[in-house]
């Protein structure tokens, strides 16, 4: 099983949106995907209709009140499961996933998840501190989201330094990519940040895909659905997550070695 944590230096870069839509796309490509919300604020649940925000989840599991099977929600997509954050108390949220007992329980949860799922996607709180730090210390791979604005790229070195520090004192980890979000293609400053970022970061960490700032995300959020379920014919922005999923597969060693995977003729 692969574990990928979606992280960012600052809030509001679209972490939850990316986590939700990326999980949807990865599952659509056939991988059994479990999306875990570790943000104590429950952003995933707040992004989805169906009363997800009020359901038990990770907090209840960590507390020992509920088992793994009881907290995982099945979804309309057969390969996609959802583990909401549940109902953490304020005091629990203050030390979220930083206490040894909670960390042991979370590790056990990941181990249990490996029995049923190919990949676990983890949505975190913003920044390298507090709840996000606790999660990062226990997870081996991170996808760094960076808003396509000057502040985003300027804060990247200090964030990478923090990640290195967390992994040095934790179980080790690596960045598998830097994904640009909130890109405004018609704004020169935004596109300049995109170009400069792709020039500065290691080539293998960049993506050909970027997530643009598109009103369709607001519409999907208002409806409480991932883009892929917004309409019968998904909007163009949904295709971006398909591409990101395809670019991530080799980086996460998600492969189908057993299956014959050769080019097929269009016309027999």
């Amino acid at each position: 099983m692969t574990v990928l944590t979606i992280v960012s230096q600052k809030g509001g870069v679209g972490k939850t949106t990316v986590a939700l839509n990326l999980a949807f796309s990865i599952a659509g490509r056939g991988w059994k995907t479990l999306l875990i919300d570790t943000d104590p604020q429950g952003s995933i649940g707040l992004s989805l209709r169906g009363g997800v925000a009020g359901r038990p989840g990770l907090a209840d599991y960590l507390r020992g009140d509920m088992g793994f099977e009881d907290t995982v929600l099945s979804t309309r997509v057969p390969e996609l499961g959802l583990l909401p954050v549940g109902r953490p108390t304020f005091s629990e949220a203050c030390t979220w996933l930083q206490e040894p007992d909670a960390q042991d329980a979370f590790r056990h949860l990941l181990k249990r998840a490996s029995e049923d799922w190919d990949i676990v996607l983890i949505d975190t709180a913003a920044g390298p501190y507090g709840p996000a730090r606790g999660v990062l210390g226990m997870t081996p791979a991170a996808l760094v989201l960076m808003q396509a604005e000057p502040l985003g790229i300027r804060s990247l070195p200090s964030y990478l330094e923090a990640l290195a520090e967390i992994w040095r004192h934790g179980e080790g980890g690596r960045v598998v990519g830097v994904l640009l979000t909130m890109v405004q293609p018609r704004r020169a400053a935004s596109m300049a940040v995109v170009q400069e970022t792709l020039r500065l970061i290691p080539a293998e960490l960049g993506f050909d895909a970027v997530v643009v700032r598109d009103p369709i995300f607001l519409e999907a959020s208002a409806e409480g659905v991932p883009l892929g379920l917004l309409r019968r014919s998904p909007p163009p922005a949904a295709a971006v997550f398909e591409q990101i999923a395809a670019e991530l597969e080799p980086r996460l060693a998600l492969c189908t070695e057993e299956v014959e995977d050769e080019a097929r003729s269009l016309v027999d």
Partner: protein
Amino acid sequence: MKLALSWIDPLELRTRFEAVVEKPPAAPPWPEGRSAGQRVAPVASQTQPPPAVELACLQPFPSQEGGLSRRLASLIDWLRGQMKAQAVFICDDDCLVLAQWGCAPELAAAATWLAATWNSAGPRVCPSGDGTVAVQLDNNAWLMLLSGRSVWGRVYLGVCIDQLAEPLTIRAMQDALSSALKEK
């Protein structure tokens, strides 16, 4: 529109990425006095006036018997003793490591990259294949890269020393490398 929006030093960013792209491997420490995060200065030509370096009384590299690996091990010992080498790296023209001592992964990577570049561009720049490349790692460390011929092809020797070696010292290292590569 300003070209640089990031205000980021690309070398610093690269260093930060190196720390998070792969898990840090267990490796010999970076030579004393430096950390892995420090920068590599631009390549300096040997034709630049070298600083005044006091040439030590060098013991010549003794003639060696035995296989290549043994001779290279002796060469490393000689470099450590006579040149006070902080690290030594020897690779072939495919950048395959033949022998090394005290090399942190960063230094090994730099040495193999230089060797590969030299191997690729060298024939056009210097058909004889002779010469030296020196890279200043910091105020007290230089990476000297030399090449020699063996029956298997060209071999590159990277030596990390505390001062830029002067021509006579380089010649002594060159002779030692040639001797170590020579089949008896």
